[in-house]
């Protein structure tokens, strides 16, 4: 088993009187794909938001790369190599596709206001590097032909890929993907699955929240199942498909495994914004 990159320990989160997560623990091995699944309202997006710094958890610890990161701001976590995508698309609609991906390099670059306004030599060199790396990331995801278009004009599927390119361009250690294939057609879903495996190949650790079970079963190394804010199962995809409690949760008592089971495709109503 590879070393653990992220571990979540006894995570608690509540909104008003609603307990969104209670005592959730799991470990994410480096270089692998971990899927977090569960019915609507299970707390999946809340977990992502707690890990990525959008929410500050009420209790428990999130340990990333050996450091406790509870309550650290998202932009600080991005500099440590932890980034994410969003369930409801969050591309920068008024920026070009290339610029969207260039923003993705913010965490690993550092020139500020003054050097930008004066176009100092170091700033120009950094700018060239940013442009170059962004172009490479676009090519990796097959978006190079749309580079100069405003991102808001792309198709839904292409915008999803822009988000992924933006998250990957800075070569992060861990990317949290909130429903990467929601709303995509089967061909686009297939492409996205290939892209995720290619990303894994590069050594990037992925955590994905996803409703598309066939994708989850195909790409994941490990699956964590949440139900009403509690972890009810964890294991490799095969064992999860046969796990009695998972079957009870999804199928209401039948105990035959159904691979490629599609659950309610409607996105859960957890707010992605703080």
């Amino acid at each position, binding site marked *: 088993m590879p070393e653990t990159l992220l571990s979540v320990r006894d995570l608690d989160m509540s909104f008003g009187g609603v307990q969104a997560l209670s005592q959730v623990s799991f470990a994410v091995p480096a270089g692998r794909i971990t899927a977090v699944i569960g019915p609507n309202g299970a707390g999946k997006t809340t977990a992502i938001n707690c890990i990525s710094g959008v929410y500050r958890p009420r209790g428990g610890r999130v340990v990333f790369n050996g450091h406790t990161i509870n309550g650290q701001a998202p932009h600080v976590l991005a500099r440590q190599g932890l*980034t994410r995508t969003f369930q409801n698309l969050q591309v920068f609609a008024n920026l070009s596709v290339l610029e969207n991906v260039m923003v993705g390099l913010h965490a690993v670059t550092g020139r500020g206001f003054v050097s930008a306004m004066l176009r100092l030599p170091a700033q120009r060199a950094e700018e060239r590097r940013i442009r170059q790396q962004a172009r490479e990331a676009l090519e990796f995801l097959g978006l190079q032909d749309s580079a100069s278009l405003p991102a808001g004009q792309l198709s839904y599927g292409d915008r999803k890929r822009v988000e992924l390119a933006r998250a990957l361009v800075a070569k992060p250690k861990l990317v949290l993907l909130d429903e990467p294939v929601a709303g995509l057609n089967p061909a686009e879903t297939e492409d996205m699955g290939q892209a995720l495996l290619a990303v894994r190949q590069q050594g990037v650790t992925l955590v994905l929240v996803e409703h598309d079970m066939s994708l989850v079963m195909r790409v994941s190394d490990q699956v964590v199942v949440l139900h009403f804010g509690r972890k009810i199962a964890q294991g490799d995809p095969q064992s999860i498909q046969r796990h009695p409690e998972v079957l009870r949760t999804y199928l209401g008592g039948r105990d035959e495994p159904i691979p490629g089971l599609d659950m309610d495709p409607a996105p859960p109503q957890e707010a992605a914004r703080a």
Partner: protein
Amino acid sequence: MNREGRAFWWQLAALAAAVACAPLMVGNPYHLNVLNVMALNVLVVTGLNLLIGFAGNISLGHAAFYGLGAYISGILTSTHGWDPWLAMLAAACVVALVALLIGIPTLRLAGNYLVMATLGFNLIVTILILQLDEFTGGPSGFSGIPPLKIMGHSLASDQDFYWLAWTTALLGLLLARNLADSRVGRGLRALHDSPVAAAAVGVPTAAYKVQVFVLSAIYASVAGSLYAHYFGIVSPTTFDIFASVELVTMCLVGGMGNLWGGFFGAAFLTPLPLVLHVFEEYKDIFFGGILLLLLIFQPQGLAGLWARVRGARAARAGEGA
């Protein structure tokens, strides 16, 4: 250099050429005076545009920063005998600090609290200028401000000040453009579109909003200092809340988020009251009406209109080919 980069240099060169030729065609010194005020407005609105158009925060207190620059420069030079250039620098530093103190508590919050804070700030500044009359001259204004000098040559005349004001305005435009097309500028535009996503890739959203607010206040302060040394007299009504509204109007009319918005807005609205001087009393109605029509029919402002005309022409040329 990319295509947009080249286009910007052509546009800037065209504007510089127009600026260089204008005095030859303007015989009337009063018209030169209008062009000078226009240059100062271009500077303030360009700074304001970085805040409104790029970061998406509205300030209704920029006339106060403009006024603080003017009064601090005036008082330091006239009462305390400072060198005008040094006073201009000191004023910019003080204004930057004030903007920082307003920006830090208000810009950390989501939502447009900055509007309320700056609105209140402008009222406070106006009241202070009126009440502290032993320092500021109160309602009758503060006079006897010396002109700026370059190597012993005084820049008091309309003609001399014209070159200084427009050089500064063009420089302000150039610096704003450099910022917009940079890592920081992309970060600002990104946080305007989606603050959560910008933060997720490492954009320090709150810090950037505060910094761009401070920067836009410095633009206003420099313009205010130039104003004070040009006219030699400053009075409170020039910098009241209505002046702030006018500045925001120029920004919206010119085109938010377009670098040339500041130029177009100031160039169009500065001379308008003078052209329409017969309607002096209805000036505010005109301003309001123009704003209303533009927001309904041309939300990208005059700069956007220009881009649209050019786009349509390019499309026709493309069809013809």
